[in-house]
């Protein structure tokens, strides 16, 4: 199962950055995100998986697809990538993968000794609203500010000028 998901993740992510049709790329991305959610399920982090499904796969990908639709014809095909950039990208990725993997694989991870915390919704809910250590109410509040600000930012950028007629 893991290898299946992993396979999907890797292949689809590769495809999503190589395909010449933009909508397909979005779909491949969706597959990656879904497979990732699958991994979370396997790891027993259902809440995380659910968020992944709804927010990521549901929200972001939909957003992306909308924007694609706004800006492209569906049949639009890309030109091949610029060769210099291709070499740059692949080079960086290869070196990066090599470097990070050697480092990770040569590291002996020490598992924590403390008892495992059961992962259920109450725990998650409590922690999300707790103010002590390992409580996440502060980030929660903060992210709400962020989301508000992001929303305003997006509106500022996207909203039409009153006296100007733009195409969209």
């Amino acid at each position, binding site marked *: 199962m893991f290898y299946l998901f992993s396979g999907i993740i890797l292949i689809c992510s590769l495809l999503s950055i190589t395909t010449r049709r933009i909508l397909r790329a979005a779909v491949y991305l969706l597959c990656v995100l879904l497979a990732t959610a699958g991994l979370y399920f396997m790891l027993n982090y259902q809440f995380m998986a659910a968020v992944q499904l709804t927010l990521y796969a549901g929200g972001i990908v939909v957003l992306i697809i909308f924007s694609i639709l706004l800006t492209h014809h569906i049949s639009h095909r890309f030109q091949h990538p610029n060769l210099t*950039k291709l070499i*740059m*990208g692949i080079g*960086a990725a290869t*070196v*990066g993968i090599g*470097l990070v993997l050697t*480092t990770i694989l040569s590291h002996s991870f020490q598992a924590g000794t403390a008892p495992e915390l059961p992962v259920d919704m109450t725990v998650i809910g409590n922690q999300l609203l707790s103010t002590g250590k390992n409580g996440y109410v502060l980030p929660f509040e903060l992210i709400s500010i962020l989301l508000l600000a992001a929303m305003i930012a997006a509106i500022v950028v996207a909203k039409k000028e009153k006296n100007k007629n733009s195409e969209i």
Partner: protein
Amino acid sequence: MTGYTYTVFIILIPLVMFLVTGLLGMKWKPIISGLLGTIGMGTSWTLSLITAASYFFGHHAEGFQTIIPFEMKWLQFTDSLIIKMGILLDPISVMMLVVITTISFMVHLYSIGYMHGEVGFQRFYAFLSLFTFSMLGLVIATNIFQMYIFWELVGVSSFLLIGFYYQKPSAVAASKKAFIVTRFADLGFLIGILILSFITGTFDFGKLTEPGTAIFGSAASMSFMGISAMTWAMTLIFIGGAGKSAMFPLHIWLPDAMEGPTPVSALIHAATMVVAGVFLVARMFPVIHFQAPAAQEIIGYVGGFTSLFAAVIAITQYDIKRVLAFSTLSQLGYMMLALGVSGYGGEEGLGYMASMFHLFTHAMFKALLFLGAGSIIHAVHSNNMYDMGGLRKYLPITHITFLIACLTIAGVPFLSGFFSKDEILVAALHHNKLLFAVEFIVAGLTAFYMFRLYFCVFWGKDRHYHHTPHESPLTMTIPLMFLAVASVFAGYLPFTELVTSDKLGFESEMNYMVAVPSVLIGLLGIGLAWILYKKESEVPAKLAKSWGILYTATYNKFYFDEIYLFVTRKIIFNYISRPIAWFDRHIIDAFMVGIGLTTEKVSYKIKGMQSGQLQHYAFAFVAGTLALALSMIYLMM
């Protein structure tokens, strides 16, 4: 303390005159400056004579004492190296006081007439005062550094006076040349002083020249490039003296210096400044004699060679002042030679005495010659011998006095030159036969060229003068007459008792073995000149032609000026200074600027990095991160 304190005024008066005329002179009528200067100088002269009289004829049972009536600290270098400003009276300095003030006074007086109506009359007197001040300061110096200070001042006043006609390019060139050549020599002097002070730790003449002093204790062991330190020091100091006294090969400035007004030539370039070198050697004589015999040898030979060399050139010159200038050179050579062959103490110190004696007499008659020449030039407005002739009719006083001077320098018996030159020849005979021979010949040559001059100018045909030459005014002729008298009688001063190397008098006999031949050769020279130049004839020209190249070379002063020009213009200017200037602009500066330009160039070269392409940035970002990680993980750990 010793009753000589008033000597301060001898030197201060000219200084005050200089400042007063220099700063305020322009606001006065010119003549006031002249009169003021002359009166001031007269006072100084009187004071000098009083000093001399009381010094020489006061009581001096055990020889003459060195008296320092005044001394103050001027600049302190170390505990023992102190420059003091003071007045030192001993036989030679007192003698020099007399010489300088006498000639200077005469020249002041003479110039009132000679310089009458010149632009810059006041300036002239200011400079004369400055010169006199400096020269006096030089001779009464109590230490070698004070001497050096005034030495330099003398140089600069000479520069100013030679360049008096500053709008004349030749005068400017001559003054520059004089200054730079002597400056070069002064460098030697300075280094000599440095070495001397390093060895002895003192500048004081008193300590340096004290017989049997112990301050040279460590000197013997010191040497540089195989030559002992003291020889270096003394030779270098001598170079300084040679520069001022225009010894070969530093003589080249003196003939050119004749560009200055004639009274200046009389004062500076005949009687006083040029003997400063001789004076310097005399002042340092004990040191040179005992500590650096090799240097003394050099002095002797240089003196001898210069006298011969200059005499030969003098024969061919036709500029009246130049002939006199080369004559001066020749006579200075005599004096140097005399010092070079002198011993120390009593009879042995004959050369020393003779040198001083000759200095004294030479000052009188050479000043006379120059002033006479000035009178002639004043009359005919030319320096060229061939523009003159038959002047005896027009200028009787000048003629007589000039004749006396010529006879004196030629060594005709019973005139002062005879005595002093004779002593030199005797001294030379005792110590160095070769030098004696040289001087003997020079004595003949001297008589010849002087009378060549004399006959050319005062005899021969009349020339076409622009206006009839007339005798100079009284202010000019009085000095001539005074100096003529001095030239005649100066020889009778008892120099052997007064000015000697060890300050103790000695008895000296006339040496007829020397005197008679020297008189004869002098007469021979006069006779030859009589034959050749009394009447205008073709003979001299033919003779000149027959000597060919040698004549031309001599006439051109053996091309020394050209050599110097080559060295300065070509080598120093073109091959040293110009490349250095080029190097500075194009290598060093270019390098410094280059750093800046390279930076800027690099800045343009790398502008492509900021391509505006987001993905290039991203790549740089990732690559940078990875490179950092790689280096951190694999190089640091």
